[in-house]
């Protein structure tokens, strides 16, 4: 046949990728690039080469993310606006936190994280309300709460990053270094992952289930703040002073967040499945997504988590090779990361190759949460090892 590919495709073009981008997309990209450029210009001199590489990777990733998932753009811009306002009001000293109304009640990191907590709890209640009252409006409100909570949480983290430098330049570090900080990270990441699925699958019925686990994390943050005074910013121990922390920890939490979502969708699956058998006309059977959709969300969440958890574990090994003198030490945290991976690898093989679906896989996903939870928290609480910071 004498047709070349080029001549054949003419007139059959799918929407070209770049042409499909809106003005807002381009504005968003420009703002992200400008922000990253400004950071490089302003702080480039004190960043090491790896940090520059990380920043150079993060900016395009954020742009790609915003183009792929349009809803996130507005939130990211709001977060940028809020955190820059906080940075601007602070100026060069923390004192403003006492005098500025805005900081004191809204966007100092403590206040922002408190708002995040409140909003997440409200979102949980509203999602369930929407499900039980069959109210689409309530569903919209719940989504709005979740978006706002994630925005406040992210703002809280970014402002905290700045605050750590204001306490003392020596103290400055990305806030992913202790249990308090990573719980906030966990809440935000899990919420964002959930919101993505919510948009993709056009269903709000799962919101309550996923938000339940975020609310539990929020409960922990509150207890940790008020009972243990854990919200203070402490300087880093030398072992944590590394660019590796900036990528290893977030990668881990994308994994934890995904696995948590998978487990909560598993719970929803089991309830939906039971409702389908016992009460096919009831609320659950009619309002919840179909079983194969639930199964699909669960699978997608596990694969996504598996990918990122693999990356995180490998990054951890590379970091360990630099900080502890070996890429693998059978340290409890390391070992539990492996256990988590092996567990989900078995799950994936079971599903993919044996074609298992349905209830057993949902139960297994729920059980997986306990394995994950132990890797995340149990190790810190019950076992000691090289990862001994962040102990309870």
């Amino acid at each position, binding site marked *: *046949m004498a*047709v070349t*590919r080029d001549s*054949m*495709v003419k*007139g*059959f*073009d*799918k929407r070209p990728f770049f042409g499909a981008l809106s003005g807002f997309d381009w504005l968003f990209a420009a703002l992200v690039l400008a922000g990253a450029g400004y950071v490089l210009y302003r702080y480039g001199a004190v960043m090491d080469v790896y940090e520059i590489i990380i920043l150079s990777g993060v900016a395009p990733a954020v742009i790609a993310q915003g183009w792929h998932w349009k809803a996130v753009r507005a939130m990211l811009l709001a977060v940028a606006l809020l955190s820059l306002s906080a940075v601007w009001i602070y100026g060069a000293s923390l004192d403003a936190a006492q005098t500025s109304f805005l900081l004191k009640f809204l966007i100092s990191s403590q206040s922002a994280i408190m708002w995040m907590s409140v909003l997440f709890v409200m979102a949980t209640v509203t999602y369930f309300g929407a499900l039980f009252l069959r109210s689409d409006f309530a569903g919209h409100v719940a989504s709005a709460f979740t978006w706002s909570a994630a925005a406040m949480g992210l703002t809280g983290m970014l402002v905290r990053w700045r605050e750590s430098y204001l306490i*003392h330049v*020596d*103290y400055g570090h990305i806030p992913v270094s202790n249990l308090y900080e990573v719980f906030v990270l966990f809440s935000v990441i899990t919420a964002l992952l959930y919101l993505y699925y919510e948009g993709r699958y056009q269903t709000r019925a799962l919101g309550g289930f996923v938000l339940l686990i975020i609310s539990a994390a929020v409960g922990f943050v509150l207890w940790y703040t008020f009972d243990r005074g854990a919200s203070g910013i*402490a*300087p880093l*121990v*030398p*072992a944590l*002073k*590394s660019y*590796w922390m900036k990528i290893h920890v977030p990668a881990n939490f994308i994994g934890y967040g995904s696995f948590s979502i998978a487990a909560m969708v598993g719970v929803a699956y089991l309830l939906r499945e039971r409702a389908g058998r016992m009460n096919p006309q009831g609320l659950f059977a009619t309002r919840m997504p179909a079983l*194969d*959709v639930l199964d*699909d969300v669960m699978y*997608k969440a596990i*694969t*996504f988590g*598996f*990918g990122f958890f*693999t*990356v995180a574990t*490998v990054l951890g*090994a*590379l970091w360990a*090779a*630099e*900080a*502890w*003198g*070996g*890429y*693998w030490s*059978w340290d*409890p945290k390391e*070992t*539990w990361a*492996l*256990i988590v991976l*092996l*567990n989900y*690898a*078995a799950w994936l*093989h*079971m599903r*993919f*190759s*044996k074609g298992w679906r349905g209830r057993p896989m949902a139960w297994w996903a729920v059980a997986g949460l306990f394995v994950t939870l132990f890797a995340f928290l149990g*190790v810190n609480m019950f*076992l*000691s*090892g090289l990862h001994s910071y962040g102990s309870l």
Partner: protein
Amino acid sequence: MTTPARPRRTAGAILLEFLGSMNLAITLLVAVAFSSVIGTILKQNEPYQNYILEFGPFWFEVYKSLGLYDVYSAAWFLVIMTFLITSTSVCVYRNGPRMLRDMRAYREDTAERSLRAFHNKAEWSFAHTPDVLREVVMRHLLSYGYRLRVKQHDDHTVVAAMKGAANRLGYLGTHIGVVVVCVGALLDGNLPLKFAELTGKVRVETRQLPSTEVPAISRLSADTASFRGLVTIPEGATVNYVGLKLRDGILLQELPFQVKVADFRIEQYDNGQPKSFESDLVIYDGEGQVPQKQTISVNHPWFYKGYAIYIVSFSDGGSKLKLQAWPLAGAAPVQTLQGEVGKSLKLAGASGPRTIEFGDFRLYNVKPAPAGSGKQFQDIGPNFTFKLRDESGVALEYENYMQPQEHEGRWYLVSGVRDNPDAEFTYLRIPVDTAGGIGRFMRFRAALLDAQKVRMAVQKTVQEPMTAGLAPDPRMQQALTALLEKLLAQFNAGGFETVTEFVQQSLPQEQRAETARLYVEFLHQTLRELYDGAAAGEGGSITQADHSRFFDDAVNALGVLRDYGSPWFLQLADFQHIEAAVLQVTHAPGKSIVYTGFGLLIMGVFIMFYLPQRRVWALLRQEGGMTRVVFAGSTNRDSLGFAKDFAELHTGLEARLRAL
């Protein structure tokens, strides 16, 4: 006649099938996960003594024979791991060729019947010729990024399209990656060492020996393939070995070069927490080689010829301490001592000889600053710790600060004491005089033991107008003198506590309160008399109020000396700070293999998940004047996503075909 035998499978084929089976794979994945848990729950490679204490002798032996104290190199664990590697390799071996073929196979021969059986399918009839329709189908699929093969069959045409062929590479990357990681890690593991131990070529040294005295059987030569060991090197010292901690002892691993710690530095945050520590190293590598220098710090090791040198921690490397031993028991001269951290020395004292064991020296001690100082933290200067052991082996632990410390507006030399490591220190505070030393306090203390000075002070007290009124006649004066001397002796023996005991024993209940108050007043008077004598002629301008405060503090300090428990007050006069870097040296030749495996694994996983293989077929068959089009698709992952995309694909195609 023989019936054709079913092809008999060889034992090898059956074994291969078993090893490559999914059931085995899943079982092994779960088994490794479960076994790994053990090593995290049970602390690994502790001295055996700890396990015996924890489990008792019976269970200790049981667990030991199961290898639970070093699970990850226990034979059974390695067997499971080997099975997992073998199973994965066999899996790749069996599936790999098929998958590689599959990447290039478009399956143009798929039958119409099969296409109809697909979940995603559509079927139309059009009046156009197959050639025209085929053209549109091809263009449509190309515009969606599919790659095509067209095959003209006898009575029909098949357009076979595929996307994501690389998905199969994902499978290969993931599974080969796992195998490669395990193989690399095995190379770096301590299997050869375990083997050498089993065959008796190597024995763990359980005694505490200097490195030079470790016997050859506990030494590993410098050409060991892989190891990971620790060594503590004081500033200025050079070593050519590291220690490998193994269960209840060590092995000495020799290095092919010598490492010198030229300098060690530590930086602190304002709250005293270490911010970074770093060390200047020099490597001497054989005759005629120029020494190499590099500075290492946490997270920044030195990679030298396949060896990696890390700074793990730091400790005192034997700081030299010059001390003044002021006597606190009996009358004795001040002695000057030379101590060294980590060493001990013997000293004869009033209550028998004691061994001083120097524990640690700290140059900085950052504490929260007092309120109102405008700072959050302050450094209160060097201190050192030591244990004082008597002949029966009982020891008290001390912590002495070099510089005077402020406490409620006044200044003291401070020493803490405790009788067990878990207790808090209780502090002895000796007031410092105008010269900043403890001379005046010590003169006061010496005066208390000086019979002549005591007699004169007592005399003076007895003749004071107030006392004189109480004891008008010589007989009573004599009794009072005797009493005061007695009280003073009691005070010397154990401070006010002993005085109170004495009062309680010697006075009837009803007089106690009133008389005791008087006694204490007399005693105070006499002590003050002695103090004034000790403080006289010091020069400078000291107010009366200063004297009174100093006197009170001194009396308080003297009052608790018995509990302090040391015959001396060791004042740090001078020091030479020597630090030691704790280094870790590792050799892991499998590292680059492991990293390659990591790369394959990650690439593989993402390709497998996010580049699903999708196949679409269009089968065109002329029937009568019409052409029938069977359009079907399948995928190996993400069937819901594909169903959506397929719907778009086929509605789009249908629209185009109808528009012809």
